[in-house]
C-alpha cells in the first residue's frame, strides 16, 4: 500500500509539470495585458512598458516559465501582480474558507444523496423513486446562481431567518486560530460565534451541495440496481434476510465503489470551482479569488492556483483509490 502511494505521488510530478506548462502558455494566449490593467485608463504606452518590465513580463515566455518554476521549487509561489501580496500567504488565508464550505456541502450531499439513492433503488419505479430522481434532475439542472439568489431572497430577505452572505456577522468577535471558523469557535468556546458561523454556512452549503448530491443519488441508485441483479444478492434474499439487511450488509458495499469515486471527484470540483457560490455569498475563498485573478490577468495567482487545484484533484483520486482497497478486499495495489 505504501509503495502504491509513493508510486502515485511520483506519478503526480509529470502530471503537475504538464499542467503548469499548459496553464502558463494558455493564459498568455488570452488577450489582455496585466500591465495595461494595472496602469489604468489614463496610462501612457511608456508607463505600461515600464510596469511590464518591472513585472518581468517583457521577457520571452520560456524564460518566464523557467524563472517561475525555479521559484516554485524553492517554495515561492510568487506575488500577486495586483496586490503584491505573497500568493502562498493569501492561499493559506483563503483556503480554510473554501474547505469549510466544501466539507459542509459534501457532508450534506453524502448524507442526503446516498440514502436517497438507496431508497430509490429499493423502491424502483415507485412514486418515491420518481420524486427523488426528478429532484436529482432539478438539482443538476438549476443554475447555482439562480438557486443561490432565490434562496437568499427567500430565507434572508423574506423570512429573515438566515444571513444572506459572508462567513460571520460583522459584529461577531472570533479569535482566528485555524481559519476554520466552526473549529475556531469551538476551540475558544465562543458559542455565539459558533451559532452565527453555522447560520452563515447553511444557505451556501445547501446551494453548493445540490449538484454533487444529485449526482451521488443517481450514481448510488444505478450502481445498486446493478448489484441487485447479481447472484449473491439473490442468494442473500433466498436465505430469508430482510430487504434492509440485504441492501445494507450485502449490496451497499459493492455498490459503493463508483459512488466513492464520484464523491472524490466532486469534492475536488466544489473545492476548486465554487466560484459562483463564493461570489453570490461574498465568501472569501479561493474560487472567487481565482476568478477575480483571471479577470485582472493576475498570472501568478492563476498559475499557482491551477497547479494547486491540479494537486487537489490528483490527491483526491489517490485517496479514492486507497479507499477501494478498504472497501473491496479484491482490489490490491502492489
Amino acid at each position, binding site marked *: 500500500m505504501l509503495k502504491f502511494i509513493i508510486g502515485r505521488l511520483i506519478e503526480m510530478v509529470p502530471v503537475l509539470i504538464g499542467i503548469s506548462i499548459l496553464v502558463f502558455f494558455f493564459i498568455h494566449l488570452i*488577450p*489582455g*495585458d*496585466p*500591465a*495595461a*490593467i494595472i496602469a*489604468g*485608463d*489614463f*496610462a*501612457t*504606452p511608456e508607463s*505600461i512598458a515600464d510596469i511590464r518590465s518591472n513585472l518581468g513580463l517583457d521577457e520571452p515566455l520560456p524564460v518566464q516559465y523557467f524563472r517561475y518554476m525555479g521559484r516554485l521549487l524553492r517554495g515561492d509561489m510568487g506575488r500577486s501582480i*495586483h496586490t503584491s501580496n505573497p500568493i502562498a500567504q*493569501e492561499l493559506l*488565508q*483563503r483556503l480554510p474558507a473554501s474547505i469549510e464550505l466544501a466539507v*459542509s456541502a459534501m*457532508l*450534506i450531499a453524502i*448524507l442526503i444523496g*446516498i440514502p436517497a439513492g438507496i431508497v430509490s433503488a429499493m423502491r424502483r419505479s415507485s412514486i418515491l423513486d420518481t420524486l427523488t430522481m426528478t429532484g436529482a434532475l432539478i438539482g443538476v439542472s438549476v443554475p447555482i446562481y439562480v438557486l443561490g439568489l432565490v434562496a*437568499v*431572497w427567500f430565507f*434572508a*430577505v423574506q423570512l*429573515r*431567518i*438566515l*444571513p*444572506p452572505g*459572508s*462567513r460571520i*456577522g*460583522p*459584529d*461577531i*468577535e472570533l479569535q482566528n486560530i485555524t481559519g476554520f471558523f466552526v473549529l475556531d469557535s469551538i476551540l475558544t468556546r*465562543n458559542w*455565539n*460565534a459558533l*451559532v*452565527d458561523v*453555522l*447560520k452563515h*454556512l*447553511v444557505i451556501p452549503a445547501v446551494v453548493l451541495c445540490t449538484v454533487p448530491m444529485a449526482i451521488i443519488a443517481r450514481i448510488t441508485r444505478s450502481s445498486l440496481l446493478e448489484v441487485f441483479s447479481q447472484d449473491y444478492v439473490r442468494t442473500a434474499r433466498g436465505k430469508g434476510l430482510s430487504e434492509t439487511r440485504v441492501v*445494507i*450488509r450485502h449490496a*451497499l*458495499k459493492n455498490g459503493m465503489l463508483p459512488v466513492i469515486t464520484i464523491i472524490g471527484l466532486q469534492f475536488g470540483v466544489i473545492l476548486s470551482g465554487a466560484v459562483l457560490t463564493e*461570489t*453570490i455569498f*461574498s465568501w*472569501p475563498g479561493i474560487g*472567487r*479569488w481565482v476568478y*477575480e485573478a483571471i479577470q485582472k*490577468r493576475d498570472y501568478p495567482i492563476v498559475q499557482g492556483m491551477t497547479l494547486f487545484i491540479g494537486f487537489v484533484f490528483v490527491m483526491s483520486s489517490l485517496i479514492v483509490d486507497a479507499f477501494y482497497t478498504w472497501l473491496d478486499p479484491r482490489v490490491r495495489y502492489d
Partner: protein
Amino acid sequence: MRPRIHIWAFLVPILVLAGLIACAGTPAQVTQPTQAPASTAAAVEPTQVTATSEPSSSTGENKGGGTFIFARAGDAITLDPSQTKENESETRVVQMFEGLVSVKPGTTELVPGLAKDWQVSEDGKTWTFHLREGVKFHDGTPFNADAVKFNFDRMRLSDNPYHIGEFNVWKNMMGGFPGVMSDVKVIDEYTVEFTLEQAMGPFLAYLAGPAFLLSSPTAIQADPENYFKNPVGTGPYKFVEWVQGDRVVMERFDDYWGEAPAFDRAIIRVIPDSTARFLELKAGTIHAMDDPNPDDIELAKSDSDLQVLLRDYWPVGTINVDHTIKPLDDVRVRWAIAHAIDREGLMPLYNGMAIPGNQAQTPASWAYNPDLAPIEYNPEKAKQLLADAGYPDGFEMDFWYMPVARPYYPKPAEIAQKMAADLAAVGIKVNLKTEDWGAYMNDRAGKFPMWMFGGWASVMDPSWLIYVYYGNKTAQEGNYDNAEVRDLMNKAQYSVDQEERAKLYQQAAKLTYDDMARIPVVFARAGAILANAKVKGFPTSVLRQERIATARFEE
C-alpha cells in the same frame, strides 16, 4: 467484522449532521424574538450578540451608537493612504485619515482639513500651511509640523528609510521622487512650508486626494513593512480589523478634533455580486451599497424601505478621432459626426444615469463652460457639412468600441450600434470593431481612426482630465494639434489662482468645441448608492470616496 464499522461510518456523519442542523436551527429562533420591526432587525441582531459574547473594546460613552455597514464590490489593496491608487482602497482610507486640505462632503469644493489656512507666494512656488492645533493621531501621537514633514519626506525621498513601496500617485502627480517638491520645512510646531520647483495649479486638489492623507509617524516607524494593514490616522474612525476579501472594521475615535461620528462602528464589506449586494440591503444586513444594477435602482425607487443617492455628473464619454487621418482631419467632417449622433436617443441605454454632453468637463466642475451650446442632433446639417467637405456620399471607416463597460458607456456595444446607425443615416458607414481592453488602450495610439473613449478626473481638479487630453499632442489622444489650446492648458497648469484657471479652461473649452477636437457624447453620473431609507447625512462624492463620518440613522 468490517461491515459493522461501515455502518458506523455512515451513522456517525448522520448524527453530526443532525447536530449541525439542530445547532443551526435553534439559535435562529433564539435570536428571532429580539427583532421587532423587520427593517431594523438585522442591524439590531449582531449588536446584541456582541454585547452578550465579549466585552467590546469600544467606548463606554453613548453618542448614538450602533454600526453602519457599507458594501462595495471589491476589497482594498492597501490601507496605507500613501500607497492607494485605486478606488477600493481610497474608500477605506478616507474614513480613517485626513489631509491638510479636504473636500467639502457632497461637493467638489476644497476646504481646510488638518491645515486651518494657508498662503502661497506670488510665484506659486512656496506654500505655507498653518496647522490645526490639538489634533491627535489614533495612537496618541500629536499631529504637528514634524508629523507633516515626516509624511512628505517619506513620500518624496526615495532614500528615506520608510519609503517602502511604489508611492504610485505621488510619482504620477509630483513627477517622480522628489519630483516637483524640493523641500519641506518645519517653521514652528504648527507651521510647515513646502517649496516647489515650479508653480502647480492642481497642488491643493492633490493634497486633498487620498494618497496625500497623513499617517502617524510613530505607527510607520514601529513597523514600516506592515503599516499597510495597521493604519493610524487622525480621522473620525480608527482602524480595528481588516479581514481580507471580506471587511474592514473601524470604530469611533474618541479624541477626534471635529464633530464625533454618530456610529460606534463603521464597517465596509466586500460583496462582489451586485445582486447579492442588493439582497443584503433588502435583508437589512447592510445599510448602503455601491454600484447597483440599473434595474435595482428602479426597484429601490419604488421601495419605501430604500433610497437612491445619485452621484453628480462627472465622467465624460466621447468619440475620439485621429486628426491626421483623412477625412477626419477636416473640422466640417468632425462636426458632421457630432451633428449625426442622436444623444437623446442614447439616453434609454443609460437608465437615467447620463445627460447629453458637449465638452470635456461636466457642470459639476468649476472648469465647465456654461456658454457652449448643446450639440444639436441634425442629420440634414451633418449631410450638408459632409457635402461641403467634399463627401456628398459620405465615407466608410472603422469605428472601435470599448470591450468594457464604464459609467460613460455602460453598454458599449449597444451604444456603438446605435451610433453606427445614426452615422449611417448621414452616409458615414462605420465598421464596428473591438478588442481586449489592454490592447485597445495601446492601439488607440495610431491604429484606430475613430474610437469610443472617456474618463473622469480622479482628483478634484480639471487638469487631471483635460491636461491629458489637450496639454500635449499625442497619438493616443488623437494627435489634436492646436498651439493655442496647448498654451492655455499650460498656463492653467502653472497658475495657482482658481478663478484665472477657470477662465483659461473655459477659453480652451470654446476652442476645442469649435474644433470639435473630440466629439462629446454624454455626461454620466459617477454612479449611484442605494441606502436604507433611515440613513441620513451620507453625501455622495463624484470621486466615489463617500465618508461615513456624518452618516446617522433617522427613523
